[in-house]
């Protein structure tokens, strides 16, 4: 009897993962069962750590949710690259904050654009009231967005 029990427990341990297989999302879900990075990331660590100083794909439209980061050449204009990258990779959340006239994504934009703290609320109002100029069409790219914002300043 005990042997049968043991065998059954072992069967259970084999079934467990199968059940978890359907429990887990394909995306990263945690560091327990189900957490994984699907791509090999050899050497990824500091390539990515340097992302705020290196250029990434600096032009994006809406609907970017991947957060994928690919490094290209280092740039002399580190803070400019950082700004481009930030806007490119947060297009949708930033647009939401600009439309609302407040929010964390908007605050971060102000920090990166070095808007002095005293004039931030004016900056937010200006962006909000010029939303249609900043986002004139669905084809707007992150570079357009930045150019349009800068033309307002």
């Amino acid at each position, binding site marked *: 009897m005990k042997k049968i029990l043991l065998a059954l427990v072992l069967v259970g341990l084999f079934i467990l993962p199968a059940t978890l*297989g359907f429990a887990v999302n394909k995306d990263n879900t945690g560091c*327990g069962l189900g957490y994984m990075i699907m791509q090999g990331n050899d050497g990824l660590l500091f390539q990515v*750590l340097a992302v705020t100083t290196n250029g990434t794909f600096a032009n994006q439209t809406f609907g970017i949710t991947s957060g994928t980061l690919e490094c290209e050449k280092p740039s002399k204009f580190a803070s400019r690259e950082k700004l481009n990258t930030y806007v490119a990779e947060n297009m949708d959340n930033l647009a939401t904050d600009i439309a609302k006239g407040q929010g964390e994504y908007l605050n971060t934009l102000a920090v990166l654009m070095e808007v002095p703290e005293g004039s931030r609320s004016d900056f937010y109002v200006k962006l909000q009231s010029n939303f249609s100029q900043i986002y004139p069409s669905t084809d707007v790219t992150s570079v357009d967005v930045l150019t349009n914002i800068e033309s307002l300043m």
Partner: protein
Amino acid sequence: MYTGSGRRYERSEICISFFLFVILYFISCISPVHARDVSYLEEVLAQARRQRLHEDPYWHILVHYKKKAFQFESLVDDPRFFLAPDGKTDPQAELEATIRAFFDPDNDESDPVACRFVARYEWIRQRLDLDPERFGTTGCPSFMDFLDRIDPQSATLVFPMAHLNSPASMFGHTLLTVETADKTKLLAYSISYSAVAHETFGPLFAFKGLFGLYPGYFAVMPYYAKLQQYSDVDHRDIWEYPLNLREDEIRKMMLHIRELNSIASDYYFFSENCSYLLFFLLEAARPDLRLTDQFHAWLIPLDSIRMIEEQGLVTDAVYRPSRTTKIKYLASHLPEDAQDKALALSHGDPFSDTDIPEMEKMMTLELAGEYLQYLYTSGDVPQKTYQQRFLNILQARSTLGSAPDETMYEIPAPLRPDKGHRSNRLAIGAGLDGDDAFSEIRIRPAYHHLMDNDNGYVEGAQLIFADVALRYYPSDNKVSLESLDVIDIVSLTPRDKFLRPVSWKVKTGLTRLTGYDDEDHLVYQINPGGGFAFRNDILGMMYVMMETDLALSGALKGNYAAGIGCSAGMIKCPADFWKIHVFAKTLYYGFEDHFNAFEATVQQNLSIDADRSISFDVSRNRTHNFYETQVKVLWNLFF
């Protein structure tokens, strides 16, 4: 054999000529500043031996040495992490090889040893008071410049809670973020350790994960990228615990993170996992912490937060709701017709400026925008359609100005996860099985039962692992195994206007089934189910599920029984400390063995405090034609 060695000879010849070339190259272009003083190397090594530097706890933190039965062994498995051939098990050999390597002029200029092992270098330099002139290396100026530039200021421990509708993820994940001089949370660096797996076949994935067959790597990326994953795609609320690490401590931690770049350690889901590896980073920052030495047969990320708290590192807890939490929150503040309007907007209806309060208009549009993004990330709306609707909604929102009351965006935080009940549970109690009295003892290592207090957990989510129950019946004077729930997951996620999830369950393990002889037999059971849950203000959470059940046992005809049926129930908390679950379940078994099983149960749980509760269960069963009533009281202790 002969040919083999011949080839090797050829290769070494090429190596020698290359080596000669390198030497000539160096002789021709090295300036006198780089000339190395070989006697100094011996001096430094002697000093290291005199100080017994290889026994220093910090050296053991940096190389991840742990005392095994007879010797030290590093938990790192990547050979590139060691400079001595026996470095994994010999701290002294590794230390001396490291010092020699720093001294070695021939190391790879693109990735010098002093950069690959920058924390080791900085520590050895300080401890032995090295003279860089005589030592012939300046360390890793590029990385030190990088640190100066980003100027790390503070560090935060981050805990994403369970994935919506996936209790398996309740086990969770912890990562660190490092905030830099600009102090914006979104631009902080997130540092996270995880397994790199290519498997999509569940059983193999879990098997390899449990037995350390995947390599684990650290990855660093901007925190906003992590947030997109957790908040916007996975729908996980996040808790951020700011740590009181000082700037110099964070710098030391960053040096160690640099060392772990591309270095693999075997990833064990339950022990050497994401949370355990973070302990090394924290110890590299503050060496007197005692985290990696605490015994772990398994380490649940939430428990790791409690351990870090016990070391006095945590200063606060900040709640960051996910997109779905925002959607639910906004919807809860809007009347029905405004919710319908938000739905219509996210499905492409144009915005008509009707005569409703400004605030309601704003919230309706914001809800529509969030919900549209939810639909897009769920793959329900194609990108082109999404872009058009999204811009229309935001454009309309931008004309309304900003909200007069910004506190409306502050979603009230639920109880902190670390303040909820602990993960292990011991229960003792007694009951009546028909006319037979019994006493029962249960123990489980993880994690949260539907009946446990939900404070700090996700409501309607259950993850039980290895719950063992033993019973003693005085009538036949023996202890027997009552049940063993190998895994028991329930995910009840209520459906509403916006979110339409499927609820499901899966249970497998040993349980009791009444046989033809009216005796309870131990059977192995696989019992999955799926259905829907709804929330009602008065009745609480209600659910219905289709279930199947496969039972395996020698006591059954043909050694198995396969059943299909359904269950329905409701869960209500009349007070924060009191939870009631009422359910009924009927299963019809066919194939070899034909019979019916019906069960009606009322469970109640009363919390005394976070880590103690009392539960009362009453159930009525009918299997074959045998009726049975069971009453049970258990005292639960979480530890």
